[in-house]
């Protein structure tokens, strides 16, 4: 007997991430000729059945256990392994969160199955699952064929697909799935949890980000002032975070935050792929750079060739004048 074609597994992510994953899952399930199920670990997100129906989910599986909800991955891996043994899915999809980076590959090892991280597209070719992933910090795309035992696992990058509701909505039911985590003792203990300060870049509608073109730590305030004038949040490229001009929590990019604002203003940023990974999903990108050939202009909707140290204060003034 064979289980569902695709199971999208989520915990602790925003609804927009879930919608992306369900969109991709529905497409792949269609090409495999099977059902898409949605597995929720921990609390059910608000409006879960409604979301599931709109995105064409066949059914929702729900695992709740007091041992879930830690930052460790032991309980998640155990729960997922039991689920896979009982439900025998062909493909498991994850949103690539910080925790999934640990949990998904551990699950792959425990089940002895193939896994691809940083996935951005999945297709089916005569029984072979073919996954396109981002590599070299976004400079290249790698294409992997997965073979061997199922379920195969793919951890999907944020913003890989645009959410799209199903042409025909479904009427899914929530099924409680019991797992036994009695033997699980989380081995990694949190001594001091992370403290988030200020608004989240990931949720910001407007981001003004600065890079090495700011020339000096003191000029980062020009970025902060424009961000404040626009009701947005200040971001930074990695070199200026490394140099201490901005806080690590403000870093946008591959090793920083993956953002998706409506407006992203990049000042004195060259547009390296490792940076663009973190902002290319922005609806409108504005680039300010002295170099008319800077790579950032290839990604931008609007370009301003000029000195950001002069332009940023003028933008702050113009933004305030209404």
């Amino acid at each position, binding site marked *: 007997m064979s289980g569902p074609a695709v199971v999208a597994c989520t915990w602790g992510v925003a609804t927009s991430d879930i919608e992306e994953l369900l969109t991709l899952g529905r497409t792949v399930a269609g090409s495999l000729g099977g059902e898409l199920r949605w597995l929720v670990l921990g609390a059910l997100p608000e409006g879960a059945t409604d979301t599931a129906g709109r995105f064409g989910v066949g059914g929702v599986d729900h695992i709740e256990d007091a041992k879930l909800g830690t930052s460790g991955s032991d309980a998640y891996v155990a729960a997922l392994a039991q689920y896979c043994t009982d439900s025998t899915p062909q493909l498991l999809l994850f949103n690539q969160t910080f925790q999934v980076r640990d949990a998904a590959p551990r699950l*792959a090892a425990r089940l002895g199955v193939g896994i691809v991280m940083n996935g951005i597209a999945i297709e089916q070719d005569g029984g072979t699952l073919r996954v396109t992933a981002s590599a070299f910090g976004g400079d290249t795309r*790698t294409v992997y064929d997965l073979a061997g035992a199922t379920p195969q696992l793919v951890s999907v990058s944020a913003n890989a697909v645009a959410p799209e509701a199903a042409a025909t909505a479904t009427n899914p039911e929530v099924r409680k799935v019991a797992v036994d985590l009695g033997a699980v003792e989380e081995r990694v203990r949190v001594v001091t949890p992370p403290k988030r300060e200020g608004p989240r870049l990931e949720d910001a509608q407007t981001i003004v980000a600065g890079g090495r073109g700011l020339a000096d730590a003191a000029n980062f305030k020009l970025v902060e002032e424009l961000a404040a004038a626009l009701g947005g949040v200040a971001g930074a490229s990695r070199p200026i975070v490394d140099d201490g001009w901005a806080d690590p929590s403000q870093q946008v990019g591959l090793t920083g935050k993956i953002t998706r604002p409506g407006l992203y203003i990049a000042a004195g940023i060259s547009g390296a792929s490792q940076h663009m990974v973190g902002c290319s999903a922005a609806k409108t990108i504005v680039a300010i750079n002295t170099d008319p050939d800077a790579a950032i202009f290839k990604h931008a909707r609007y370009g301003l060739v000029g000195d950001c140290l002069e332009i940023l204060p003028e933008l702050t003034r113009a933004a305030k004048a209404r």
Partner: protein
Amino acid sequence: MNNYALVGRLVIGDDGKTLTQTSIPRLMNAYDEQAIEAALRFRDAGTECTIAVVCAGAESGDVLKHAAAMGADEIVSIPIEATTVDYHVMGDLLAAYVQSSGGADLVLCGRQASDDDQGVVPAILAERLDMPLVSIAREVALTDGGGVRVTRVTPDGDEIVECAGPAIVTISNELGTPRYPTMAKRMQARKKQPTVVEVASLGLADTALQPRVTLTKQFVPTVQSSCQMIEGASAAELADALVAKLREENVL
């Protein structure tokens, strides 16, 4: 592979999946270098330990000599054709080596390879060795009783965790710049021969050496540019023109 050396200069080879040698210098993965640095800092701080650096692959010579020059006590090569190795095979090989060499008190890895960015091997190693996994560390300290206290760089800020040893810890770039060995150390390291461990001697089943994931293609994505340049004679004019445009398009 050290990604810093080649940002924006990648050339895909004739096989359509690997990068040509001329466009990439063969260097140690920068995150792995930071993992070695993390180990060396224990010794600098007075911890008595043997630091072994293990590399499985076709041409690990230069990479291992760099590890020796940095200060590794022992360098170990597991020769294997790279194209037959996926993360499972790599995890199995490294786990088998750790077990066959009498275990380890602490296993440090780079958080991910800076070429494929997958970051899967440490998790597989953790499962195979049944050790706890602590990923993306900026700082690692030893606790009384052989455990570790690790500061992790999470998207929400730093998190401090503890676990009993032996453990697998993956190191992130936030650890800081790895030391660059002096000329004298590099000369010395050139003479150092790696201990060669043959795959056959590790007692792995044939199935463990069967890759499940195969790279079939690699390409540089193209960007469709649609940038409209804002014109203006001064910074003030440029700013006014942009703000007007963004308001017109309802972006502001």
